[in-house]
């Protein structure tokens, strides 16, 4: 399962990035991704779980127990996910590539320092 490499689409990037902050579940992932992208990437329940499924298959994330004594009423139904070591490594690699691209872009005058 782990040997193939998953092509990362924007939703997948953002899910990975959000999970880099720590384990999270569906409801908060949707909120965080929307907040992080200013509403530009909007995940619904279907696309989110599709994305989570693909990331899990690629070995980048895994389901985990709710963090530190989940005090949520939905605790038993909510499913939490966290980055695997592989996922963390992959995210770092991707970000290096992206920042390389950003440097080129900036050098060519296509991007300013601040936002994308």
């Amino acid at each position: 399962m782990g040997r193939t490499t998953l092509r990362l689409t924007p939703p997948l990037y953002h899910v990975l990035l959000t999970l880099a902050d720590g384990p999270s579940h569906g409801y908060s992932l949707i909120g965080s991704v929307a907040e992080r992208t200013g509403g530009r990437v909007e995940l619904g329940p279907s696309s989110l779980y599709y994305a989570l499924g693909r990331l899990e298959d690629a070995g980048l994330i895994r389901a985990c127990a709710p963090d530190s004594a989940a005090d949520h009423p939905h605790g038993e139904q909510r499913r939490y996910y966290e980055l695997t070591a592989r996922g963390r490594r992959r995210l770092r690699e991707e970000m290096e590539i992206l920042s390389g691209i950003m440097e080129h872009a900036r050098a060519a005058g296509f991007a300013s320092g601040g936002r994308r």
Partner: protein
Amino acid sequence: VSGGRGSPSARIWERVSTLLFRLFPPSYQKRHGSAQQTLTRELLASEPDPVRRGRLARRVAIDALRTLPSAWAARALPRTFLRPRGGRATLLRPRGGPAHAAEAVWKDLGHSLRSFLRQPAMPLVAVASIALGIGFNTTLFSAVNALVLRPTPGVSEPERVVEIGRTNDGRGFDSFSYPDMLSLRDGVQALEHVAAWRMNPLSYGGEGAGERVNGMAVSAGYFEALGAMPALGRTFTAEEEAPGGPAVAVVGERFWRTRLAGDANVIGRPILVNRVPVTVVGVAPAGFAGHVPLVETDVWLPFTRLDIAEANVNLRLYEDRGIISHQVLARLTQGATPEQAGDEVAAVMANLADVYPDTNEGRGAAVARLGPIPGGGAAMVRGFLGLLMGFVVLILLVSAANVAGMLLARAAGREKEVAIRLAIGCGRARLVRQLLVETLVLALAGALAALLLADWATSLITTVQGAGFQLAVDLSPDRTVFAFALALAALMTLFVGIAPALQATRPDLLAALKTDGGSGARGMRARRTFVAVQLGVSVVLLASGGLLVRSLAQATRMSGGFDPAGVQMTSLDLSLDGYTSDRVGLFQEELLAATEAHPAIEAAALANDLPLDLSENGAPIWPEGFTGDAARGLGTDFNVVSAGYFETLRIPLLRGRDFGPSDRSGSAPVVIVSEALARRAWGDRDALGRTLRWSDTEDLPRTVVGVVGEVKNQTLGESEDGIVYLPLGQLPTPATHVLARGAAVDGELLGNTLLAVDPRLTLSPPQTLEAVTAVSLLPSRVAAGVTGLLGALALFLSSLGVYGVVAHTVAQRRREIGVRIALGASAPQVVRMIVAGAFRLALPGVIVGGLAALGVARLLRSLLLGISPADPATFGAVLAVLLATVALASGIPGRRASAVDPMEALKAE
């Protein structure tokens, strides 16, 4: 979750999401199902504003729709295609081959969507028409799927569960006697857990009026045979299976949750069933509604305690092979086939016939797999659903013809565009494909709407409470139903799309380019044919619906020869209340007198059996001068009734007299017969004063003192073989029904009146006679409702068809009409001409449809009560309605034509 329920739009979109989610690959559903649903609920619950929640719900549905193809692709495509080994993946996009074709179709899809969105009127009507056509089919198919195709819910390894029916000279699938069932249990190796079952309505709890619940008396091994082991407690043990064993019960899971508050310590707790304390020993597993899921079982009692379940049960049934009392199901032993079991069962039955010729001569048994509807019912339901399926296929035909007509009209309008594209070298195949894709878009949109419709309609059916029983079967569409709807959409695309597509892409190039678009004489001919088909099918549906509705009205008014409206009934068994047989007769007289004396009660009676209650009471008689087989006598139904029975049920007394107080033990034995019986026994000769012997145990023959009208005893469809009525005063049986007629009589009044005579009486929960007999009317009611609705729909769709064709003709004949008006034709003359044209268009369809309807009506005969299949009133009305519709649908464009300004029409060219 959900605080306040959302706005209607939120609910609709939620439903769309749920439906769409069921279309995801099963593996996906299994993996993400519960989490994704929880998330959806959380999301929607987090939005307090109803309008915003509606929008959110729509986005959730669109999200599901967008993800759907990827979810399937991820499953269907080889993993290496999407995720090549090594290097950073890029999605390869190969040229040519199936993928290329798929992409081209995808483009066509987009193209058609855009073109439909530009002019949404016609596509909307087409989608609505398809949605109705496929929707009816899908709804009915959901029912067929749930009732006939799907295995019974909660039964493990359903393929190993069989039912065993007794045959008579090799025919039928009847109930068993208890001793015969025990013989099968001991003597058949291929079966394990042979169990008896019998449905019994029960009353639950209460010092006052009990609550009616669905009960079933089952022998030990019932739950084991079905592989439905209790969630709590245990099933019935073999020790409990002795007549007069302990009063115990297993309760249904829903019953446990709703009536017993889901009490985890319920085992050992007593509940009141038919006012008898019964100890709960088990709770059935969730999702198991009994093996007859249509009527969810609430309480199971041991078969050996039928005395609790039924007040008037004959307890000799546990020893007497002659008394048939229950049905039988069993589990095949591992590896055994139904055929093996059948052979062994046949051997056991043959042996029994040798040993007990009196009771078992000619009696065999058949083994069949258990479906959701057991026994002889399955064949009946299958036939009935088959009939309805035939009707809904007709409506599909109408909707297909309707859409085909619209597509032809659209194609005619595009002749020029198509001609140009052909002229500049666009392949015909490509054009045909594009046009077919357009139809496919319509059909798929229609199918999706149809699924919504079916989902809604089936939830409606399930929530409607049947007469006296609750439908407890999940009818909602599952994957089989989805596949069915999609298959219909595909079929529809081919049938509906191919003709217009070929038509449109074969224009006479020059002619099409010269005129300014859309003469289409060939298209017109096809459209006229489609309209004729629609009208023909409409006649069939309207006539069938009309016949069924009329017969239902007839049946409801006079349910099989008696009038159940305004009659309350309850049942009692005096032997349970301590009345010895010598006191029964006197007390019944007292009871009847007290009931009749109540000012609100117009008429009252006691009776052993009720008409149309699906139960039978058969016995042989030997009429005076009988020439048939003396050993067998004349088989007939009988009923033991008090004076006033005929008056209470409004059964006409044709000749002679009713029973009276003088007909008591010791007086001359008398009998009343129904008309048909009198005819069977004595032909055209007067029955009054003749005699018949009722039972070989009676010394004296009985004299006929009255002849009454015919009554349907079990079902409305039965043939009328006649009934013999015996006076209760001469044959005082302790178990009777009490009937009371009166506009102000309700169950409580009847109960109180009876309890005032003796407060210790055990009464069954009172109910209206209509409720008791409604069950037998259910098939007619459903059939009438469905066909009536379909007929109206077909009429509406064909009126659209007529309108379309006539409007088109009028537009084309503008010049000619202008000339006529210029030459002095008056407006009414023009309208008359157009309407006459429409009648010529309609006539062939109406005639063929009328003939077909006569044929279909013959098939309906068993559902038609009291009217002939060729009922002139119905056919006349259908014809009138249809012609009026045609006149209306053509009158509107006709009026428009009459308003044509001749100058303008002539100049326009």
